[in-house]
């Protein structure tokens, strides 16, 4: 389905292959709005077939980065090349070869689902006939056949999101930019979307995804960068980041709101690191159950205790001292 002048990596490689030309290459990329620096000198290289994530809280600079890559926002400073082309001079060609799902749906509210796809294909200069065939195929792909002739206004949030994804695929893009594809969706709608994105990845499309959901990044991304305050604070595969920065498991204990910090002296030596949140303590250890046994041995009785696997959320907490959401 997706043809490209690049060797498609087809998701087999977890690390960039050096002899493949990157689809996206950013060096010291900067975006400023007046005096405010939204993206502060990031370096990124994304290879064909890869699913690459930008993970970070609101205001980290993810959308600003995506808009520069999408050639709808001029680069303030640094180098950016996409398909080995320059966005400032070859924006039209670059945009023609990629699909974009913006953070907020930009569907044509005056048109139906099918018309949205049709006219969007026409903007790419695809013949009317090919647009029609492709639109039907994509509407099927996102499971909206029964909504084909409904105005997009009447759709639910999840359905609109699926139309956005279908529309972004009308030109068989080599590169797909997805800005928070599942924010605001209920769990079921998220899983449908994840499944579609996974299928697209199987077909070889390069994907760039921003998210502030850890589970989403872990599900969808081969490799990701953690962004905070316009800068990249960590880079790696989801599992690699976890093993590099924190322990495999977390013991979450609660002693009641505001009373967690007082317990620290008593917990000295338990786990490899302890993170204090207002409502709970996070004790990182390769064996969470062992840490819990140690608590019992010391006769420390929390209101609740829970052992779980560490996630990217924990990595983010360690790197920035803050939680991702809120």
């Amino acid at each position, binding site marked *: 389905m997706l043809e490209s002048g690049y060797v498609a990596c087809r998701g087999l490689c977890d690390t960039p292959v050096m002899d493949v030309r990157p689809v996206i290459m950013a060096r010291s990329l900067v975006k400023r709005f007046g005096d405010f620096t939204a993206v502060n000198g990031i370096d990124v290289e994304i290879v064909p077939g890869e699913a690459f994530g930008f993970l970070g809280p609101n205001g980290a600079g993810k959308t600003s980065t995506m808009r520069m890559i999408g050639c*709808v926002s001029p680069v303030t400073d640094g180098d950016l090349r996409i398909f080995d082309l320059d966005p400032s001079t070859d924006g039209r*060609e670059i945009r023609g070869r990629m699909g974009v799902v913006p953070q907020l749906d*930009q569907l*044509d509210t*005056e*048109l139906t689902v099918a018309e949205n796809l049709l*006219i*969007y294909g026409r903007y*790419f200069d695809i013949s009317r006939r090919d647009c029609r065939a492709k639109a039907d195929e994509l509407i099927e792909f996102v499971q909206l056949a029964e909504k084909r002739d409904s105005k997009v206004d009447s759709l639910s949030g999840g359905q609109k999101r699926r139309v956005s994804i279908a529309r972004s695929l009308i030109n068989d893009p080599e590169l797909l930019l997805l800005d928070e594809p599942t924010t605001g969706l209920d769990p079921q709608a998220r899983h449908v979307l994840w499944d579609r994105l996974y299928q697209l990845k199987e077909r070889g499309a390069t994907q760039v995804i921003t998210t502030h959901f850890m589970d989403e990044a872990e599900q969808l991304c081969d490799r990701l960068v953690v962004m905070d305050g316009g800068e990249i604070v960590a880079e790696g595969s989801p599992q690699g980041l976890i093993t590099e920065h924190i322990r495999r498991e977390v013991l979450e204990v609660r002693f009641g709101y505001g009373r967690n910090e007082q317990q620290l002296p008593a917990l000295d030596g338990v786990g490899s690191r302890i993170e204090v949140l207002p409502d709970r303590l996070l004790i990182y250890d390769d064996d969470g159950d062992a840490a819990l046994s140690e608590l019992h041995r010391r006769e420390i009785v929390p209101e609740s205790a829970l052992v779980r696997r560490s996630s990217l959320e924990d990595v983010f907490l360690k790197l920035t001292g803050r939680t991702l959401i809120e």
Partner: protein
Amino acid sequence: MNTHAVSLPLRIVPTAMLSIRRPQRMIERSAYVYRRGWLILLSGFFEPLLYLLSIRVGLSALVGDIEMGGRTFSYDEFVAPGLMAAAAMNGAVFECTANVFYKIKHSKLYEAVLATPMSAGDVALGEIGGAVVRSGLYAIAFAITMWALGLVASPWMVLAIPAAMLIGFTFASLGMALTTFMRSWEDFEYVPAITLPLFLFSTTFYPLSQYGEWAWMVGLSPLYHGVELVRAADLGVWDGSIIGHIAVLVGLSVVGLAVASRRIERLLLT
């Protein structure tokens, strides 16, 4: 004269023109939209028609005949082309002010389009082109009505249709350029404050000779140049001055288009 005011169009006109590839896609989109809302299209036609009928019924007999280029015409023959030109202006202004503002500020349509290979120049020219097509349709309907009422004085009348489309082009461009500077819906209250005086004082209702020492000011109205063109075609009376009128309208169209595309780029590609 301020050199900046001159050099700015010189700088932005070529860039805007060079970025244009497929503006017709915007017209295609409008066609999809109007396929369902064709009633809206009709509304723009009735207002000038009512003017025309009211003048035909009452005012004409009161005013008497008017002499132009050595020939005499009834008053309704004189006024009809003026109304046709004004209708072209109003239709274009309507299409390219409030509608465009909604698309820039609220519907995000242009942002979606600019994420594709389309450029700001494509968007601007496409939307203006849509207004021109609409002006053309109104002009044809209006011309047929005039003919049915016996108000067509010359077969050259067919040229009034491209003339009305040129008026549409000019006012759509200027209207769109102006809209890109508007901050809120309140700003649109100024639009009639501009179009109404133009409608009243562009030789629409009486010839230039009646304006006396204010005649030079009439020349500043873009609509005046349009009225002169439509009237020349309708009455079949013209001279070399129509070249000047065409040049003014084309010039304003191009500048309006360039400003509109440049501003859309500024507003949306941040």
